[in-house]
């Protein structure tokens, strides 16, 4: 069993066939297609849509106030009479951008860190994991406040602040999985056969990690999008009158029983994005799956 498996993997090593397989699997999955279509539409709407909306995200119309959706304002207006459609689209630019970038940063740090800790083990593992414990415990609010004071505000700092927390849990998951994989017979066999570490990591460990990592990443994006609004609230990051999905949803949630559209429209965009990303994530997971 062990041998056949390693063999199989060695055999299917040619890059071309692998890519074809990946795209084939993605293509065959309807869920993936739905996911891609949905995500593409949302992104396109957020980045190109604003050019076609005849309103500005900041121009107020106080006497109009919060008005329900109408032909003038398809998504209605907020309490200052601003068009919610354009605000949602522009907010999407921020949220998608921050969500992706910060998640990728967290993904890279978390996976690499967790893998090294899990693979090397022993004292290195203990030391690295105690460092993670330490970062977990430090007061996040205070750190963000301190960042605003030390560096003023900039988008880069959002990534720094979010990156500092979001990779921790992933690192712990990856480390646990790496340790499990390492105990598998085929990895131990590869070690005995004198396969270099980087090959063991890339051939056996990384491939088996892909599944939890992708799942966790698709779940991290929404967390990051929401965290951005918390951080902006503390004065770091996006400033009014700009608003991200996180802050729009937050604002809408406080008023939704009076002005439901303030919550509904940004929430739909947010939920659809998450849903589509999870579809895409699942498809990737299947496509990368080492033993099909």
């Amino acid at each position, binding site marked *: 069993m062990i041998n056949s498996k390693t063999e199989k993997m060695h055999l299917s090593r040619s890059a071309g066939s692998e890519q074809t397989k990946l795209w084939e699997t993605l293509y065959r999955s309807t869920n993936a297609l739905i996911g891609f279509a949905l995500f593409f539409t949302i992104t396109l709407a957020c980045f190109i849509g604003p050019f076609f909306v005849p309103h500005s995200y900041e121009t107020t119309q106080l006497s109009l106030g919060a008005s329900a959706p109408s032909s003038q304002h398809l998504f209605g207006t907020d309490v200052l009479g601003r068009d919610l459609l354009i605000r949602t689209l522009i907010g999407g630019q921020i949220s998608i951008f921050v969500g992706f970038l910060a998640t990728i940063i967290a993904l890279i740090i978390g996976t690499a860190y967790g893998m090294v800790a899990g693979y090397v083990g022993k004292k290195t593992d203990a030391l690295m994991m105690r460092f993670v414990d*330490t970062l977990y415990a430090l007061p996040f609010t205070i750190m963000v406040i301190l960042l605003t004071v030390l560096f003023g505000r900039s988008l880069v700092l959002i990534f720094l602040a979010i990156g500092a927390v979001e990779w921790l849990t992933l690192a712990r998951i990856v480390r646990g999985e790496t340790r499990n994989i390492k105990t598998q017979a085929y990895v131990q066999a590869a070690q005995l056969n004198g396969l270099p570490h980087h090959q063991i990591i890339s051939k056996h460990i990384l491939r088996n990690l892909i599944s939890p990592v992708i799942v966790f990443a698709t779940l991290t994006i929404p967390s990051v999008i929401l965290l951005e609004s918390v951080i902006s609230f503390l004065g770091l990051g996006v400033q009014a009158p700009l608003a991200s999905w996180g802050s729009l949803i937050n604002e809408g949630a406080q008023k939704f029983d009076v002005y439901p559209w303030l*919550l509904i429209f940004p929430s739909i965009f947010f939920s659809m994005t*998450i849903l589509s990303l999870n579809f895409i994530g699942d498809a990737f997971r299947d496509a990368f799956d080492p*033993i099909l």
Partner: protein
Amino acid sequence: MFQLSIRRLLQAIPTLWIIATLTFILMQLTPGGPFDQEKPVTPEIKKLIEAHYGMDKPIHEQYIQFIVKRLQGDFGPSYKYAGWDVDEIIAQAFPVSLELGLYALIIAICIGVPLGILSALFHKKPMEIVFMSLALIGICLPAFVLGPLLLLVFSTELGWFNPFGWNSFSDRILPALTLGLFYASFIARLTRSGTLDVLKHPYIQTARAKGLSSIRILFVHTLRSALSPVVAYLGPAVAGMISGSFVVETLFFIPGLGSFFVNSAFNRDDTMVMGTVLFYAALIILFNLVVDLIQIWMNPKLNRD
């Protein structure tokens, strides 16, 4: 395993010390003090107030005094809430958060794990989308949306629950749901992917070929290793759940620990910040140890490392 526990508890001491020191430095660097208000007191008076709390001494003396006090188990008085000690506050609020967190944990597991397994079993079937959407509710509707929605439906409209408070058992349900569904999403998604991974393993295929019922296969072979990422996730998650949630506590007016975590930072209530940070750190260390122990139990080979 016993050795591991002992070793980890010993490691906890320097870890906590480093956390305490870093937090101390962070608090020193952060602008604004506990006694700054919109109507400021004169600088002279502020100095006198600070003298009550030993904040007039040089930094290194403050630091030494601070470490010595914590070693004696004295967390000092809260700067913000006159007349209350930090340990008193934690002792009062933690049981509430613990209870809420445990209910949320039960909900998260009872919903997350079955949903995850179901969607794995229905992989590539239409039903999968239904289970997946259900699983994602907790993420698509963050607590500050889900809470008010639940309140609107079950309290305002149907009148089944109190709109606020923490008195009867029924007061526990909506907050626990609000808190638990978020974690349920993670658990469901991780369980699903873990189950799928394991289902494809040759040994499960072999078991299937032997004709055992698929449910037995699931329980005997799959679940244990499928849940490994879930367990790793649960370590910090449980520490987070039982140490309280600011949003849920504020929404439902629950006297838990979460609001102290958040407000102490805003109030620059240094002693309270330190108390909550160390408390949380201890929980994190504890639960991460528990996770490692469970993972060893699930995969005894790990013990050799």
